[in-house]
């Protein structure tokens, strides 16, 4: 039976998803092995049923990220954190470095929308539409929020890395990558 695969990009840049497409024609082999469920690849917005494997891109920087990740944990057997952001927060986590000030989140928003020399924002307004999900106090990586089963490092992991890791997982082989495929950047 085909395994069911879901993917999502949380606080990420979709780079890992792009990199996934670098498996090129092997995507034809992949669809022999898996059925895509909720994923940007097929634009399924909701889970249709319980999944075997999910690839998570990006960490959590707002409440929606958290809900999505928790939803994935509840609906999938194996969660694979893909890329720097999912594994350790990546670029968004840089904002945690100002976490030590007294009012870190405000400081972060002021810097982003008002204070920086490179911002043009005549109204000095910080976006606050009710439809915007609330930001978290800091950026959390996926392991801090839910249990993560595997991780594939890289920014992004190469198409090859993703392919070999995924095939190993699908076939239940030992998860062992040749060292050339492990890169943090």
């Amino acid at each position: 039976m085909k395994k069911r695969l879901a993917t999502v990009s949380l606080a990420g840049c979709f780079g890992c998803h792009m990199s996934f497409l670098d498996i090129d024609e092997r995507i034809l082999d992949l669809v022999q092995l898996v059925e895509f469920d909720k994923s940007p690849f097929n634009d399924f917005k909701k889970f249709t049923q319980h999944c075997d494997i999910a690839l998570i891109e990006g960490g959590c920087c707002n409440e929606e990220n958290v809900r999505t990740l928790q939803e994935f944990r509840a609906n999938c057997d194996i969660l694979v954190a893909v890329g720097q952001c999912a594994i350790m927060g990546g670029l968004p986590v840089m904002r945690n470095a100002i976490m030590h000030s007294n009012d870190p989140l405000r400081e972060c928003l002021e810097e982003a929308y008002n204070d920086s020399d490179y911002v043009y924002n005549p109204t000095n307004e910080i976006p606050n539409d009710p439809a915007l999900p609330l930001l978290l106090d800091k950026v959390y990586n996926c392991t801090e929020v839910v249990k993560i089963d595997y991780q594939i490092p890289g920014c992004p992991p190469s198409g090859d890395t993703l392919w070999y890791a995924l095939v190993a997982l699908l076939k239940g082989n030992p998860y062992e990558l040749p060292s050339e495929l492990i890169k943090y950047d």
Partner: protein
Amino acid sequence: MNATIKFRIDGTQVVTKAGLTIMKAADNAGIYIPRLCDEKGLEPQGSCRICIVKIGGQIVASCTQPAEDGLEVENDTPEIRNYRRDLVKMLYHEGNHLCPICEASGRCELQAVSYYLGIFQPTKYPYLQPDRPVDASHRDILLNTNRCIRCGRCIRASKTLDGKNLFGYIGRGIHKQVGVNGENLANTDAKVGDAAMALETCPVGCIIQKRQGFFAPIGKRRFDLKPLGTNSVKQQKGGSEQ
């Protein structure tokens, strides 16, 4: 001292002149022992503990431990490899090591040692995410101490190779860090040509030469071309942790 001594590293016999450290003797014999705080031409200080080996049930730093006749040294065993992995991970968690945005990526020894040890990506410990100062005062040199691993190579290089004492350790415990000899780097006589500022001296991306970022493209960087440990008799192990 002209006497030769014989000892074994993981069963391989090493013949060397007396008076060397285990690491020196191993280097001469072409056996790689991973390291971070030690560099050729500088006094060893045994602080990073990555080069630990086991002799007679005791764990010692091979960069400071003298080689002795008849020693049985355990170097690349599962136990030692696991200790080394954990120690390297600690360094990642202690500072802010964001490889994708770091100028040193690809020529970073911390990263290269992790690859050598087969570390997937450090998530074992909590990230401390420190907020340490960045010193950009100098015209040509930038210090981003968020990436410092306290190896002290710049301190020793400045002292012994440049005769300048530009750097020194300040603070203690988790707050121990490398301080500069003045209010900031611009107030010292640091020059971009100093041995302490050389790209090879800082094993990470803490000491950065301005206008030099990302000078080598991905695939052509120092450790892309020659990963750490691959020049030795023992080739890199394929195995990784999980």
